């Protein structure tokens, strides 16, 4: 792997000389090979500011109780809750608490289909339209990392990038070993612009939250990586960082999908090599999504738990844009608001590369639902039938993890476990770049997902 220093914001001769002779103030950054340039479709939805919903006209919400160790509802049917009050909690140290997204009456405790998760337990709240806040308890001061982790669990914070890993668990990591905080503002998938708008409109809050985290973890370096197709977000963040006197570095990432993949982000921003199966903390880095950092800031400074998120509505709709949505809002309400055109075929949840087709019409938004795309023939042409592999090697060229997808595919087809391990299936980040470029339209990524599931089942 070739590593080289890459110039970022300041490319003056002076800083170059300093880097050459003096003790390098900036650790060397790494480049990674592979990846694909995708058509962005970002301008569909990033032209208008983030909208807020009218609290008076909100339909009943089904707030999902998610997690590997889901919290237990602590409210009863008929009980009135105020906005931000805890409605589900648990004792365990990996239980993420759940809060009421608005004030209203609890009308049911039942299962509900969630846009990107499947059917899980949820708490149904019928809003009373007052949107009245309960008691808010901001943290406000710099605490130690264990306290912050506990606070994050109690405030319901999860990674908003897509995986939904409890932020509290991430923050519990070995604080002494972490010397770098990396914030993921890549948003490398087409169509999605929720982080883009967030960085444009709330750059100040993001910078403040990043500085707070940097103080808690006493890191040497705090850095946010943004793909260069968001020049305005980059500029706003830089301006906000300068205005606040922050040491947040705003860095442009390579403009290739999947620049936001965790190993690649760590490589681009810190030059460190994150081996498959290891956590960023093991190489001294903490990686958080930019929306998560923003939500953490809101929890710390305003005492607001994670009860809403920005969702991109785009694709074949009349009014594309971003909306700040209370968790648990029915997807159908949002789609109606966006005005889905009648010739659409289904709704994509998440981006076109990593997301999936919406299965339930009555699904609700969860903390990790970042984007809803109305699919049309033009934007999502149906994938032609797969033909045999001609070993053109394009999948090898684009694989950011330098795997050999064509051999992995052959092994997955034959269920050859030894070969799958030899070809290091576990390193696959399921970005789908291989499937995207395959001239034979082979379902490469899907077969790797299945093979991984099977391998996990064997163990």
């Amino acid at each position, binding site marked *: 792997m070739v590593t080289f220093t890459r110039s970022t914001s300041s490319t003056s001769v002076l800083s170059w000389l300093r880097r050459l002779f003096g003790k390098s103030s900036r650790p060397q950054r790494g480049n990674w*090979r592979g990846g694909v340039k995708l058509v962005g479709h970002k301008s569909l939805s990033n032209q208008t500011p983030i909208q807020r919903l009218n609290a008076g006209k909100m339909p009943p919400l089904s707030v999902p109780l998610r997690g590997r160790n889901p919290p237990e509802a602590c409210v009863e049917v008929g009980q009135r809750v105020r906005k931000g009050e805890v409605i589900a909690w648990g004792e365990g140290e990996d239980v993420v608490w759940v809060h009421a997204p608005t004030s209203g009456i609890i009308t049911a405790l039942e299962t509900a289909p969630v846009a990107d998760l499947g059917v899980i337990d949820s708490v149904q709240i019928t809003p009373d339209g007052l949107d009245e806040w309960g008691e808010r308890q901001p943290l406000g001061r710099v605490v130690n990392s264990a306290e912050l982790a506990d606070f994050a669990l109690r405030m319901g914070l999860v990674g908003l990038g897509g995986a939904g890993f409890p932020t509290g668990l991430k923050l519990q990591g070995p604080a002494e070993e972490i010397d770098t905080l990396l914030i993921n503002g890549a948003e490398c998938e087409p169509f999605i612009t929720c982080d883009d708008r967030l960085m444009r409109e709330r750059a100040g809050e993001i910078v403040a939250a990043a500085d707070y985290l940097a103080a808690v973890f006493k890191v040497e370096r705090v850095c946010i990586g943004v793909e260069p197709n968001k020049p305005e977000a980059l500029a706003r963040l830089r301006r906000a960082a300068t205005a606040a006197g922050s040491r947040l570095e705003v860095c442009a990432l390579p403009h290739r999908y999947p620049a936001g993949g965790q190993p690649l982000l760590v490589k681009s921003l810190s030059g460190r*090599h994150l081996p498959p199966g290891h956590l960023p903390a093991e190489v001294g880095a903490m990686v958080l999504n930019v929306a998560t950092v923003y939500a953490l800031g809101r929890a710390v400074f305003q005492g607001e738990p994670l009860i809403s998120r920005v969702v991109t509505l785009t694709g074949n709709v009349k009014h594309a844009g971003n909306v700040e949505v209370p968790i648990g809002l029915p997807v159908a309400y949002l789609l109606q608001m966006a005005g889905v055109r009648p010739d659409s075929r289904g709704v994509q949840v998440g981006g076109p590369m990593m997301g999936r087709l919406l299965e339930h019409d009555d699904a609700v938004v969860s903390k990790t639902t970042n984007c809803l795309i109305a699919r049309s023939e033009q934007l999502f042409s149906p994938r032609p039938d797969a033909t045999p592999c001609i070993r053109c*090697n394009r999948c090898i060229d684009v694989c950011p993890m330098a795997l050999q997808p064509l051999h992995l595919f052959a092994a997955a087809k034959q269920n050859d476990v030894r070969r799958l391990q030899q070809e290091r299936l576990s390193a696959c980040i399921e970005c789908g770049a291989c499937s995207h470029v395959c001239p034979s339209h082979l379902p490469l990524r899907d077969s790797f997902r299945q093979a991984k599931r099977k391998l996990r089942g064997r163990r």
Partner: protein
Amino acid sequence: MSLLRPETVRSIMLAVVVALLPGTALYAYQYGVVVWVQTGWCILFALLVEGLFLSMRGQPLRHGLGDMSWLVSGWIMGRALSLMTPLWLMLLATVFALGLAKHGSGGLGRNRLNPVMAGLGVVAVVFYQLLYPAPAWPQPWTLDLGVFEVLNLEWVWRATPPHDAIASATPLAKGLLDEAAPYLSWAGYLGGGLLLALLRVIRLEIPLAMMASSVLTSMLLGHTPTEALNGLTLGGWVFAAFFIATDPVTSPDRGLGRVLFGLLIGVLTECIRAFGLYPDGLCFAVLAGNLLVPQLDWVAQRCWPKSWKGRLA
């Protein structure tokens, strides 16, 4: 150029056909209509044989023929066989190529040997005396043959020896005695090959490595550098380097493997040309290289692991 990059198997195959056009056209300009007739026959045979074996294997015809790989195979077969090959030999070579080498090993993408080279190799070894009845004569005596004369001469048991042509004065009359003249088509194939490299259908590692090792080997064998370079324009060397050796199915997957593959083919070609019995040096060299692909890939992986290490650095 990336916008033009072929994105389906069919468009890749059609791009190869387009790239084959200039070289074939130049060849036809020199050798007459026989080039088109022979290429046409081979494409027809390839279509029939592909269809036959697809249905024998119970594969859907529309799907199997839709990828147009038969068109490329047929075209390359037509250009790889020597001119004035009898029809039955063309058919036999195509059956060996597509039937045995390709569908016999599981269809498109599964063959270890380049199908066309396998077919050509079998025919060249088994029917050597019928294919090359007389020493190959470099002058384009076929230029004056019309379509009907060509067809007439193809319905024969053994290839027509160019004896008549030796007596005829056409080459003199046409001023084609210039030594370089008989080998014009290489320029067309070079152009086509570079087009494919630009479209990123093929990679240049194999042709470049082949070129280096071919030139070096022939210099080691006692030729001057000019002769060695001139040797690259002979007997379809450029054609084989860009259109046959680069077949992704039968070449290594790693850059270093491809370089070794090209080097090996270059050396073998020159050795067969210098010491071998058969005139098809490139064909046997490519086949030998094909057989070694798994080993070359293994060597490349051992010498230069590109993958992300599984351990903490």
